[in-house]
């Protein structure tokens, strides 16, 4: 529910390991809300989200230990450098990574020249790539929930991210993302459209 408007109802979804769910829909149709419900940030008006056989509210901390959520705001601190942000986000997510591992992830994302620059000096696309470089860290979590991850990315970064998502699901991971663009990964994804 948003105010007194029902965003969606009778939604019954199962996301199996090794699969991608793409949520599409117009602005305001509830894509972000659905993703926030999936990761437990938003409580649905009715219904439950299960992880395995248990509702995610049963053992929230264990579920969150398996999850990477990237919202539509990149969650970066303007007064930290790119590498500091990445290490800080990894630690909040329960991963202790070395400087070298963070640097490798940034290098893979093509951001090594910006590693020690403050976030406030970077472009929107670079900020988005720094947030996404969490997905390149060693021992990635199994569930990736990504809200408009392709926003502000150039063509090469867009392609690299789609390849990364395919690799993740090929290794048994789960991806749920929202995007209003048509993507190459749609061939491997289940696409649902939310109507206004």
């Amino acid at each position: 529910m948003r105010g007194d408007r029902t965003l969606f109802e009778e939604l019954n979804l199962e996301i199996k390991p090794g699969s991608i769910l793409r949520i599409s829909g117009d602005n305001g149709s509830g894509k972000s809300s659905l993703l926030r419900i999936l990761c437990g940030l938003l409580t649905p008006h009715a219904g439950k989200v299960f992880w395995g056989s248990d509702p995610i509210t049963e053992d929230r901390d264990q579920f969150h230990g398996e999850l990477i959520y990237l919202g539509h705001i990149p969650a970066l601190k303007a007064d930290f450098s790119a590498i500091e942000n990445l290490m800080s986000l990894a630690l909040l997510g329960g991963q202790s990574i070395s400087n070298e591992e963070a640097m490798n992830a940034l290098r893979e994302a093509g951001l090594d020249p910006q590693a020690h620059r403050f976030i406030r000096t970077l472009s929107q696309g670079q900020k988005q790539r720094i947030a996404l470089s969490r997905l390149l860290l060693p021992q990635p979590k199994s569930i990736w929930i990504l809200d408009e991850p392709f926003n502000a990315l150039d063509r090469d970064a867009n392609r690299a991210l789609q390849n990364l998502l395919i690799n993740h699901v090929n290794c048994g991971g789960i991806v749920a993302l929202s995007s209003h663009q048509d993507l190459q990964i749609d061939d491997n994804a289940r696409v649902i459209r939310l109507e206004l």
Partner: protein
Amino acid sequence: MSTNASGFKIFQGVIARDLRLALRRKSDSLAVLIFFAVVASLFPLGIGPEQNLLMQIAPGMLWIAALLAAMLSLHKIFSEDFMDGSLDQIALTALPLPLVVLAKTIAHWISSGLLLALISPILALQFNLPMDTVGVLFISLLLGTPLLSLIGSIGAGLTLASRGGGTLLALIILPLVSPVLIFGAGAVESYQSGLGVAAHFSLLGAMLAIALFLAPFASAASIRIALE
């Protein structure tokens, strides 16, 4: 080598993160200290050089100045994380949210309340307080300022998603922290009168213990509501 971080490491990491951010934005902590110094200095200027009167009112004045100065930075405990999306990541951390909130509150106290307590002896000089009384004032602030941060964190969480959160925060928090002011200033006044301070310190300590246990849960609940 990447490893799973223990709960304690995440807890430490949150404190270190917030302290590093406070160091990068020294102006925030500095504004609190300057406000404390200015307010505490206005009273002797307004009242005049009546030494006995200044000594008498010093505990209350310094405590009120510290309380108002601490209020300045309370809304920032969570608001910046809320604005830049970091609060989502904090709510999704593998550590229980009340513990993350406690870590953030500790960092907030170090970057504001502790500094207020540390400069209080210098400001007490203009009230002509004897050194032993200054010591009691310092200890009362050391016990009282963490309470301001803990109680303030509840208000900061409750007012996160509201417009004009700063004013609302003050309206919610000021009545709640009045016992801290009463017993904090009361400890110094009691010492000045030749009475013991143990009762006041015990009460402050008891309030601190209760707040340490309860406030993070209340703040965490208010944050979850704000994120909805």
